[in-house]
Structures are given as structure tokens and as C-alpha cells.
């Protein structure tokens, strides 16, 4: 199945959910609304053959509304095809977990929450995964000070 055919199938089934379709250098990216993300992902897995979630990550577009974007990089192992789905999320709003669709999303969503502060509904085990358990804040956010909140930011060399 070509990417175009998948986009057509998605458009036919989730016509109101799709915000944008971009194709760039043979990579297709579909931006969807976050409300039905679990249904869309289940559809991608069961009807389009994307049986592997390569990566789930967050992007911080500081200053824009909605601020965050959750990116799902899918892979169809038998057909060796890739596909990308994005879902915008406002700050402080939760998106549903897709760990019921692909089990591997469990840790990816923990990482996404740990470093970006994007929260996931119904996640089975929402704990920090990389930072120490008692850490405060989400360090990969664009407005997090790179040297940590407890230190003076670097002002250049004094000498």
C-alpha cells in the first residue's frame, strides 16, 4: 500500500480529525487532532499494517499555541514502510496513551512526560524514567534553564 493510499483511507475514515497532510522527500506526515488518537493508531496498526512504533516523542514549539506536538513514527515491518503521525497538544492538556496499541509506547510516553511534561491519560505506569525520581520540572522544555534552576546561568568568561 502506498502512502497516498493510506492517506486516502485515513481521510475516508477520519475525515474530521485530519488537520494537515505533508509529503516531503518521500516521507508522509499526517497531523491529526488528539481526541481520537487511539482509534487512529489502532486503525493504522490493524488496517494499514503499521505493527511497530519506532518512536514516540514530543516537540516544544514555545510561543505557539498549541505549544506541544506528539510525534508517532510508525513502521510496517513486512512492507518496510514508514509513516508519521503528529498530534498537537496544548500546555496542561492531556492526550490519550497509545500504550494499549503498541506496548512499546509505555516507556516512550514516560520519557515524553519526564523530559517534556506532556501528560498521558490512562497510562499504566506514569513515573519518571530518565531523571531521578525526585526531580522537579521537565528539562527538555525550551524554557528550562540549561544549567538547572538552582544555578546562575553562564554569563561568559570573566577574564
Amino acid at each position, binding site marked *: 500500500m502506498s502512502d497516498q493510499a493510506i492517506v486516502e483511507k485515513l481521510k475516508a475514515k477520519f475525515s474530521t480529525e485530519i488537520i494537515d497532510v505533508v509529503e516531503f522527500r518521500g516521507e508522509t506526515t499526517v497531523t491529526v487532532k488528539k481526541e481520537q488518537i487511539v482509534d487512529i493508531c489502532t486503525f493504522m496498526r490493524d488496517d494499514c499494517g503499521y505493527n511497530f512504533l519506532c518512536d514516540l516523542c514530543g516537540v516544544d514549539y514555545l510561543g505557539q499555541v498549541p505549544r506541544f506536538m506528539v510525534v508517532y513514527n510508525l513502521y510496517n515491518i513486512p512492507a518496510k514502510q514508514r509513516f508519521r503521525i503528529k498530534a498537537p497538544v496544548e500546555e496542561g492538556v492531556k492526550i490519550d496513551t497509545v500504550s494499549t496499541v503498541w506496548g512499546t509506547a509505555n516507556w516512550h510516553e514516560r520519557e515524553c512526560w519526564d523530559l517534556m511534561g506532556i501528560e498521558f491519560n490512562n497510562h499504566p505506569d506514569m513515573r519518571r524514567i530518565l*531523571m*531521578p525520581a525526585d526531580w522537579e520540572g521537565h*528539562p527538555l522544555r525550551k524554557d*528550562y*534553564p*540549561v*544549567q*538547572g*534552576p538552582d544555578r546562575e546561568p*553562564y554569563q561568559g568568561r570573566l577574564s
Partner: protein
Amino acid sequence: MGVEQPKTLGSGFITTSLDKLVNWSRASSMWPLTFGLACCAIEMMATGAARFDLDRMGILFRASPRQADVIIIAGTVTKKMVPVIKTVYEQMPEPRYVIAMGACASSGGIFDTYSTVQGVDEFLPVDVYIPGCPPRPEGLLYGLMKLQDKIRAERNTFGAAIGVGDVIHNEV
């Protein structure tokens, strides 16, 4: 009244000779803990292997902190690693020494970030700092020899070993 002298066994010929014996044995068998944290550990392994051969100096890597005298902090220390390093250090029997190997362990190095400790001396008493990113094996060897000098310059080690007074650390 005067400046109070630290309690020692004195500095007679016999006690200083016994100190020398203790210092000689300590400096000749510094057993480091096998404990690598990042890229510097590769250079530490190279120093231990055939070409540079730490064994000829009586430096054998031990896999347990209970058997180790020296901990070489070889690599980047993240804040998440601090409790582990502290635990391992506390498990080592005294006397124990700390070598901060490389820029990261000495000062945080290039990782001037929220997740990295800016030098292990924030929570461990460091005896020798070795600069470099990573230090060459010669650098680590030199650092170890500096630590040997420091051990040889200690006084009242015999007295402290039998429970009289504390070890006096002298400048090298």
C-alpha cells in the same frame, strides 16, 4: 598554653620506621575499584592493560568496594549517579582515596548542564585531580604516582592503625 599538638605515637626512630613500613605497603598495593562512568573509563582500562600495565605497580583492579583502597572516578558524574557513588564510597574500608580522572569528574567538563555534577568534590574528598579529556594513560599513571607520594608523606599511620591518634596528612 601553646598550639595543641595532635595526638600521635611520637616521632621516634621506631615509630617513624613503622610508619614508613605501613606507608610503603599501602603505596605499593593501591587497589582501585573497577568503576568506570563514561569515556574516561576506556582510558583507565587501557592503563590497566598490557601496554601500560598497572599490575607492575601493585595496582590491581578489584570488583568489590570492600576490597578496594582507591576509587577512580573515571567519567561524567550525573546527579542520578551520586547516591550510587556515595554508597560505593562508604562501602570501601579506610584508608580510602579518591582520584578524579578527567575534566568531567574534576569540574563537570563540557557538560555544564542541569543533569551533571560540576565535579565530584561536591560530595567526595578528592585526593588527586587528573586533567584531560580524557587524560592519556601516562596522565593516569602520573596521578597514581602522585597519590603514592601523598601516601608516603602521611605520618602516624602506624599509630592510627593501632588506635592512637589520627593520620597526619602532609603536603607533598
